């Protein structure tokens, strides 16, 4: 049985969050009424010319520096020609022959292992408008608001081997562009889009198989689904004795399947040639140095430092590294509360899931540093059980500035601080009522410890300090 290896290469389009379009002053605000963010230039009226928007250049250089890509001092814009109604000039301005940077890498974690993903190059280009085919049975609608929006296209080597790796790469890249503040990375709105090139080959062969490119993947989850589907499809075709032809595929998110858009035979001849309207893009060493100097510390550097300093998990450190707002809150709280691990656990168990499910920022959660620390101290002191603290007190914190202690009292969650003698009396009663179970425990059914604890909790109305109670119970059972 032939075993197959998978090669996945990604082409990621990143919409830059500049104020205006790549080659004219039109706004790129998302969600405006159709054809309102336009001008004679973006409509390619006769006589108009492009002029490069400086703001996008800095963002492009930032990404190149972050992924350790080699920046060309002189790069060029090319025209990529094809006819489509949402492409006003009849060509797209892009960098085909000499992109502004080449090479580079981005590290991802898959399971427990670190993988270095090689980046082939990044180039600048402009986006097309949108064609909408579903509004009118006879006509297609064109919205040119997006036409001319600045994009970076980042192309990886075909070195990813599973859908999970592709997922991790896209996720990491999205975090990075958000961290750098160059794009909102919103895949649903199309500000980050991935074309996934998938091919399979016999494991023993080093020659890449014929690839299929899946376009229009607009979420991380869909990217993973589409790639998995494509791997399975190609494997089936080859196992059945067929061959894969180079094809462009569409991903149908509803059905979870890929479908051919066009065949290699219909591949366009884009007739690339250097755009005569734009002078070469010159990025001097001095300019690059200025951009580098103004760059924030990169997230993986922060991540490593946090693991070392605080002993928190890599997952936790990564989250803090990519989110400066979250990180600064964490660090403020560390001044008030000593255990970084316990604090980080509160973040990964309660705060981050809340942020993710509600789509809010830490600021919008309306949590005071004192409340967070107070909550952890209640647990540490054994005054409130951690489950009650998480489930009942935590949600209350977001409603007002009330202290966790007040909330605990109001909700009657403070555990009785029973003396040793009181606890011993309680357990004696329970042992007397369940002498069979005590015998069973002593003959080896150690799991019954939980039963006795449950009985004690029930008798006390749930207000025992569980740790203390458990210690005494253990001692009593072992000495019986």
């Amino acid at each position, binding site marked *: 049985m032939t075993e197959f290896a998978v090669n996945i290469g990604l082409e990621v389009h990143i919409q830059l969050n500049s104020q205006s379009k790549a080659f004219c002053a039109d706004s790129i605000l998302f969600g405006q009424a159709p054809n309102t963010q336009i001008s004679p230039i973006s409509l390619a009226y006769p006589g108009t010319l492009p002029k490069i928007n400086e703001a996008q250049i800095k963002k492009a250089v930032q990404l190149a520096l972050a992924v350790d890509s080699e920046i060309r001092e002189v790069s060029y814009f090319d025209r990529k020609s094809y006819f489509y109604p949402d492409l*006003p000039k009849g060509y797209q301005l892009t960098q085909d022959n000499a992109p502004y940077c080449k090479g580079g890498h981005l590290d991802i974690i898959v399971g427990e292992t670190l993988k270095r993903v090689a980046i082939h190059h990044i180039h600048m280009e402009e986006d097309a408008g949108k064609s909408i085919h579903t509004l009118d049975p006879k006509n297609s609608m064109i919205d040119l608001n997006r036409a001319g929006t600045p994009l970076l296209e980042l192309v990886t080597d075909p070195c990813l081997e599973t859908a999970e790796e592709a997922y991790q790469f896209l996720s990491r890249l999205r975090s990075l562009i958000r961290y750098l503040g160059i794009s909102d990375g919103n895949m649903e709105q199309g500000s980050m889009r991935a074309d996934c090139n998938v091919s399979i080959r016999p494991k023993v062969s080093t020659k890449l198989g014929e690839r299929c490119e899946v376009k229009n993947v607009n979420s991380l989850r869909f990217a993973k689904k589409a790639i998995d589907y494509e791997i399975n499809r190609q494997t089936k075709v080859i196992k059945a004795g067929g061959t894969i032809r180079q094809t462009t595929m569409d991903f149908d998110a509803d059905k979870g399947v890929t479908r051919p858009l066009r065949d290699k035979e219909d591949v366009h001849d884009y007739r690339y040639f250097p755009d005569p309207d734009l002078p070469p893009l010159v990025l001097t060493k001095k300019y690059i140095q200025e951009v580098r100097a103004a760059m924030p510390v990169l997230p993986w550097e922060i991540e490593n430092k946090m693991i070392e300093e605080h002993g928190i998990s890599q997952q936790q450190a990564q989250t803090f590294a990519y989110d400066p707002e979250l990180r600064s809150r964490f660090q403020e709280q560390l001044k008030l509360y000593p255990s970084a691990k316990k604090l980080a656990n509160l973040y990964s168990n309660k705060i981050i899931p809340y942020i993710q499910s509600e789509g809010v920022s830490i600021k919008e959660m309306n949590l005071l540093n004192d409340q967070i620390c107070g909550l952890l101290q209640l647990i540490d002191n054994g005054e409130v059980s951690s489950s009650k603290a998480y489930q009942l007190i935590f949600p209350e914190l977001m409603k007002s500035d009330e202290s966790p202690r007040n909330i605990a009292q109001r909700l009657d969650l403070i555990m009785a601080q029973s003396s040793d003698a009181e606890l011993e009396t309680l357990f004696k009663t329970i042992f007397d009522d369940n002498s069979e179970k005590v015998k069973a425990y002593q003959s080896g059914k150690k799991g019954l410890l939980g039963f006795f604890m449950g009985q004690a909790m029930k008798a006390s109305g749930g207000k025992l300090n569980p740790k203390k109670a458990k210690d005494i119970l253990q001692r009593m059972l072992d000495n019986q």
Partner: protein
Amino acid sequence: MSAYSNLYSLQDQLGTDRTTCVEIVEYYLENIEASKHLNIYVEIFANEALERAKFLDKKLADKSTKMGPLYGLVVSIKDVLCYKDHVVTAGSKMLEGFNATYSATAIERLIAGDAIIIGRVNCDEFAMGSSNENSYYGPTINGIGDKRIPGGSSGASAVSVQMDTCMIAIGSDTGGSVRQPAGFCGVIGFKPTYGRISRYGLIAYGSSFDQIGIIGKNIRDVASTLHTISGPDQFDSTVTSMPVPDYVSDLKSERQNLRIGIFENVLNNTSVSPDIKTASKNFIKLLERRGHQVDEIPFDLLEYAVPAYYVLTTAEASSNLARYDGIRFGYKSPNAISIHDVYTHSRTEGFGEEVKRRIMLGTFVLSSGYYEAYYGKAQKVRKLLTDRINGIFEQYDLIVLPVAPSTAWEIGSKSEDPIQVYLSDIFTVIANLTGIPGISIPVGVDFEGMPIGMQVMGPKFSETLLLSTTYNLLK
């Protein structure tokens, strides 16, 4: 002889009781009317020009306001220049009735300089042609001779000056389109250095060749106009940031003892007409009498200029004209339903034959498998030519050449042979391939009385030298 020989003396008369802007405009409107049979204007802005003249007269009467440098200058514009709220068609059915939504930078500067735009003149469709025969509006006729072409593509621009329907015509020069018609019509045609005047609002033909040019009757008016419309523009990143010299003041500073080169293969070339050879020799003598030194210099790349020019300009044109797709503006075929038909029918019906020929040629030379053999090679020729010309300018101040190998031919006589027409561009395409400035000046007539033009070219940004040298030659 024109009643208004130059802007300088005209501005002297304005503001006195000798004349007014309104009178000037009326004078030119009469001349336009009288030359209608030549098919110069495709639209006359009569009322608008008169209104503007009235406005300028009023402004002039108010001694406290400063007049723009071009006040009183009556200008015709080639039908490839966008003028806000005016139709611009590039001589094509494709843009029939198309209204410009903004003004070209050069036009804005003319208006800001208090010039008066009197109308829009005919040209070869999308400026593709050397005879003004390729226009949707029909050919324009040379005012001299019997049914002669005026040259192209700014043919009507040259005739508009020749027939005294305006003082200055603003055209465009991609391979000689200003200098050659000026030569054929006996007027002055100037193509500045590539990057001197903004191309914003000039309908593109070959973007790395196109340059706005000026046609006039005297060097001084050309210099004034150039000074007003040149300079950096936020809408065109190929315009130089170099400061614009005061071309008019510099006219009188004539440089002596210039070293001037003429390609040796021109004077003994069999395809150059005998009268033009004679005119060239006389021109050399004139230069020598003025104390300049003229040398014949070898130039073995001349035969590659026209092929390289047509490969590169058609490549750029095929892409520049892709925007005329029937979707957002311009002609849309009524016979089209599917998107594919909208493209093919609109473009087939909207473009003329020469434009389609060049789009196809340009598409071919860029297509995969042929790119290196044609486009790539032509780029190398362009580089080689540029290096060679720059090398010549290390030893010589100027190069002189005839404007064309022949004078204006009869309308229709070369229509069947586009290659023959292309070859007539041989002496003018050099300046566009290398980006240098060139000026054509009238030096005489041939045995049939058709004007002969000589061309003077200088290194990049040598406008001052070109203008002052020719100014003093023509004085």
